[in-house]
């Protein structure tokens, strides 16, 4: 089965679309079969039954579930995700306001993961069973087993005690006047507007939560990188290079690292779902006010439209991340690109 990489990627996109449809059906059905009447919840206990009935009709709750779903899906594709019961605004407006904060946090966390974990894994594989390897293994084990809330709170405690003045909650200091920018990403908007103070202050706020969010991934990716490096060291072509006297440095960075970065990338894609899950905890601890905070509030308030949208967006995050991973792997691995030429 040899495929053009473009075909392969299109197939993947097709799969992702199917996954999104399945996911939306699942969450939609779940949100509709729960005990309790959405119309009643929207109006509160003081509404009369006539009012409730009117809202039921207006929300289309008297229609069969299939019709309700198709109606919802059609509107969702046009960007209409319904009204939020809590904020009394369209859900899509709420999302537009909160998603950038989370996007920024997640992006910086992913950067952290690769910057810390891949070099660490390489060094550990090189000095296998030496002190640095043991220290690194302890670190990655800690990353895997520590509850994210415990790590986040510990970071806050340490910052409060030893780094006075370092911000431990929020995205920006209150005394910085900032009206908001076009993208909602503070790092980028600050640069675009020529407000370096905003960018730097936002970066300062970002470091602790991003570190907390990346810890679990650092643990996983360090492990995977290490074992991939060790496994690939034994490959014939690496031994050949060694016997030709190619310097160790060149072998590691030019040949091994590329080969060994495929496994961590794949894991990164798969772990993205739990990354989003952990963002719920991290955003709560650091009062981040992003998409995950919005999700948590809407779940607690049983804001059905918002909950459905949050689940869908979380799924979309995962799918986009995995598409990027797929494309990166195709770029890195020439065996995947050359398949059609053979």
């Amino acid at each position, binding site marked *: 089965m040899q495929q053009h990489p473009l075909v392969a990627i299109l197939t993947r996109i097709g*799969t*992702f679309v199917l*996954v*999104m449809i*399945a*996911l939306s059906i*699942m*969450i939609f059905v*779940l*949100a509709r079969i*729960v*005990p309790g009447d959405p119309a009643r919840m929207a109006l509160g206990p003081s509404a009369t039954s006539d009012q409730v009935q009117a809202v039921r009709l207006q929300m289309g709750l008297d229609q069969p579930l299939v019709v309700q779903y198709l109606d919802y899906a059609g509107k969702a594709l046009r960007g209409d995700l319904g009204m939020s019961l809590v904020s009394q605004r369209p859900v899509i407006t709420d999302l537009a306001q909160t998603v950038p904060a989370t996007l920024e946090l997640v992006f910086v966390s992913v950067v952290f993961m690769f910057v810390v974990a891949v070099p660490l894994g390489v060094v550990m594989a090189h000095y296998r069973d030496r002190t640095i390897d043991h220290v690194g293994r302890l670190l990655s*084990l800690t990353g*895997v*087993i*520590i*509850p*994210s*809330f*415990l790590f986040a*709170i*510990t970071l*806050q*405690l340490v910052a*409060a*005690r030893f780094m006075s003045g370092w911000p431990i909650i929020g995205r920006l200091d209150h005394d910085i006047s900032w009206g908001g920018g076009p993208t909602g990403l503070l790092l980028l908007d600050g640069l675009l507007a020529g407000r370096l103070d905003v960018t730097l202050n936002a970066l300062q706020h970002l470091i602790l939560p991003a570190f907390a969010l990346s810890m679990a991934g650092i643990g996983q990716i360090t492990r995977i990188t290490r074992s991939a490096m060790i496994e690939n060291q034994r490959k014939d072509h690496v031994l050949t290079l060694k016997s030709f006297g190619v310097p160790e440095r060149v072998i590691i960075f030019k040949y091994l690292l590329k080969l060994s970065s495929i496994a961590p990338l794949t894991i990164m894609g*798969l772990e993205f*779902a*739990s*990354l*989003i*899950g*952990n963002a*719920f*905890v991290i955003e*709560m*601890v650091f009062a981040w006010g992003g998409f995950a905070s919005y*999700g*948590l509030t809407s*779940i*607690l308030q*049983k804001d059905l439209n918002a*909950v459905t949208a*949050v*689940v869908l967006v*979380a*799924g979309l995050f*995962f*799918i986009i991340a995995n598409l990027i991973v797929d494309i990166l792997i195709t770029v890195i691995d020439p065996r995947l690109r050359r398949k059609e030429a053979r």
Partner: protein
Amino acid sequence: MADMKVLDASERGLSASYMMWYRFSRNPAAVIGTLIILSVLFLAAFAPWLTPYPKHVGAVVDFRARHLPPDAAHWFGTDKAGRDIFSRTIFGLRISLLLVVGVLGISVPVGAVLGLMAGYFGGWAEKLISGLTNVMLAMPPLVMALAVSNLLEPNLMNAMIAITLLWWTWHARLIYTVSKSIASEDYIEAARLAGAGPVHILFREILPNCIPVISVKTTLDAAFVILFGATLSFLGFGVKPPIPDLGSMVADGRQFMPDYWWEVLCPGLAVLYVTLGFNLLGDGLRDMFDVES
């Protein structure tokens, strides 16, 4: 040829299991993990007799003893109501273990049976499992569990249901992969030719060969379930107060940061202790059975 004694099955079995035990007991991580888990089981089982203030598990209020730092009388200090955090932490372990038993007690057998069938028969079971896991993959488990448990009613029972609904697919997928590769082995074909029925093949031929994978996965999963449960209750989806539960104890203590740090760190480190134990044990089992995952 006289010295080439043919070993009978029981002798071979003995030496194989002895070899496994040898590898396990020489692995410091595995031994430490086992000791940790045994200590947790012991503490949780005998909590009423081992803890200094078993009454503090309930709605006791002792305002003179509020927010006491750790000392000889209160090893982990006291909380906002003057209750002994050490006692509450030990009782909190019970909830964590209950969650593990509940979630894995259902999702492991269900996942194993469906995975076995999908691997051996193929067909719709195969399609169902790969389809479901593909959807589940895209869903942050935490978000799903929050949504499910809250749309029902936020408590531990529903949290457990929510976790279980998600968890069995992973086991099914894993067992499916293993059983599919075993199903193509010659001895399965031989058993079929000898007239063995599908039930016999599934449970007497394939299942025993899946045991190593299942036990490693289950042990490592126990750590995940505990982490997961603690996170859920930290976010406010746990048991109802005043029942002690590690995640919600951390959440309670968070209001009094950074002054009363022990109220956060002690229950939090208890979670870490249990997950460490299960992880070390799981890694040890993996080395012992020599399975990859």
